[in-house]
């Protein structure tokens, strides 16, 4: 019997110690550390773009990429939060524009001091978030359609309020434009907006992973029925998530004002889809319950790197659209391959 047992013992052992192809080895390492998979995509992309144009990795260009990603990157924080609960927020971009117009008008047209206008902007953002939250958690409307509806509402309100007129930087005062203030660290050049975005990641990362509320967000996204039966007030969690998202969007609006040096409705509403793309490339599940802000950050950077790198590689605009479509697919497919339990550990 002893022999049989030894053979049986070795069955799994033998399997585990079998020789692997180099690809399998790579896969195994990546699979054991799924959080680095977006990093891999990013590094490959950066390497390729550097080959195409050696200015790509210059400190100046890297500083620029960070500034370019600040708006979408900060929106992606709010988006991650919502997606972790199994929802989706199509209204973040529209709300950002609405809030920036509110803050801009209060300073530029009504002459209020910046901090007060900012506070009112926060109020508007949070109230809009609460509106989404009530619709999703109390009336139980699907988040997709809820935020599709509020998207229309926020866009219409922003346009009706501003009548399409932008408020330029000269009228906005120092406070609202503070996010544009730049400073240098060695050869790199940052703005307060970039720092604010990074702080949003750090702060929400802490909250998500170190507090009970963060655990509840994951639990609600993972299985809302189970979360409710476990004694979590799922309604309150959802509501607070949308409210916090509204607050975070307010910060994005601040960054946006700084970047535009203006409060204007003429800002890409496409940032919605960009923020979702960042979250998904970062490995967060659209079904909720699974994902990290670190991943989202890498995802946002990846999209920005693609857009910047393709330009620097002198790819024609129409081909850029094509290339970005393909690269989204490749990035997510690679991520999926890495996560698959294909190579047995």
């Amino acid at each position, binding site marked *: 019997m002893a022999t049989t047992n030894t053979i049986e013992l070795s069955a799994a052992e033998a399997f585990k110690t079998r020789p692997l192809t180099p690809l399998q080895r790579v896969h195994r390492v990546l699979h054991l550390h799924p959080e680095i998979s977006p990093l891999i995509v990013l590094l490959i992309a950066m390497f390729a773009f550097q080959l195409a144009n050696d200015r790509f990795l210059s400190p100046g260009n890297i500083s620029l990429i960070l500034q370019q990603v600040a708006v979408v990157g900060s929106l992606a924080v709010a988006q991650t939060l919502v997606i972790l609960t199994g929802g989706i927020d199509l209204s973040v971009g529209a709300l950002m524009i609405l809030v920036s117009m509110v803050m801009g008008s209060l300073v530029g047209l009504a002459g209020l001091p910046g901090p007060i206008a900012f506070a009112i902007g926060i109020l508007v953002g949070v109230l809009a978030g609460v509106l989404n939250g009530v619709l999703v958690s109390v009336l139980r409307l699907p988040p997709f359609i809820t935020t599709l509806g509020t998207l229309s509402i926020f866009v219409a309100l922003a346009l009706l309020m501003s009548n399409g007129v932008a408020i330029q930087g000269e009228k906005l005062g120092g406070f609202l434009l503070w996010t544009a203030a730049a400073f240098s660290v060695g050869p790199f050049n940052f703005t307060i907006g970039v720092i604010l975005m990074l702080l949003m990641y750090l702060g929400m990362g*802490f909250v998500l992973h*170190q*507090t*009970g*509320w963060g*655990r*509840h967000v*994951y*639990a609600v*996204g*993972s*299985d809302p*029925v*189970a*979360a*409710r*039966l*476990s*004694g*979590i*007030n799922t309604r309150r969690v959802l509501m607070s998530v949308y409210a916090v998202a509204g607050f975070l969007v307010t910060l994005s609006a601040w960054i946006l004002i700084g970047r535009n040096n203006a409060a204007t409705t003429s800002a890409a509403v496409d940032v919605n889809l960009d923020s979702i793309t960042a979250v998904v490339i970062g490995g967060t599940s659209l079904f909720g*319950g*699974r994902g990290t802000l670190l991943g989202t950050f890498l995802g946002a950077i990846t999209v920005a790197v693609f857009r910047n790198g393709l330009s620097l590689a002198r790819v024609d605009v129409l081909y850029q659209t094509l290339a970005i479509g393909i690269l989204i697919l490749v990035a997510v497919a690679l991520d999926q391959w890495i996560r698959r339990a294909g190579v047995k550990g």
Partner: protein
Amino acid sequence: MTAEPILRARGLVKTYGAVVALDGVDLDLNAGEILAVIGDNGAGKSTLIKCLTGAEVPDVGTIEVAGREVSFRRPQDAHAAGIETVYQTLSLAPDLDIASNMFLGREIRRRSPLGGVLRMLDYKRMRQLAAENVSKLGVRTLQDITQVVETLSGGQRQAVAIARAIAFGSRIVVLDEPTAALGVRETAQVLDVVTGLRDAGLGVILISHNMPNVFQVADRIHIQRLGRRIATISPESHSPAEAVAIMTGAAPAPGPAVDAQLKEARP
């Protein structure tokens, strides 16, 4: 013993569209007692305990905990009243690990200002407590308390849910077919723990299809049939075969006699 029952339900009705799941059910649970609920599939056992623990709101009927009428709108209302439940469809978040699931909704914060001000969680302590609670149930294949619930076997998940209910139940613990997915040794261990809870003065409601188990631990047996409580018997007064006969309708229900008789026997 004229003490109030710790849990008393009267006239519970719960309908789903045309389906009548509960048709005016009464239930009494005393402190320090194990009340088994048995009945055919679809007899309304799970619906009954859902109504008792805030997972569903009954259409009609009253519930009293220790003599005070309550109206549970959601499970945490019941938690607040000291009632913990293991539901038949387990209430675990598949993407979270065992420790997080154990403490879901009542996480432990750090004692330092980090916990007070920043509300940081004390993962270390939660993991340690979770490991202790799970190990009480003797599921030996469950070693890594940071394993994600999704990767657990059916019985392992069940064990996590039971461990949670036992850890937090301060007055009443309700178990809906807790040992259905458990192995022989694990089942014995759970029954041990359940008797321990009774001896510590808690009220326990145990739903099970396993008659030997029921007759081994129950003090009284509530028999549910087609949405109604058809009888409440005691293991001394009836044999398992008789209980099954009543449950399936093969024998007539003894009527409220047992209840009465129990009450008489007590004072």
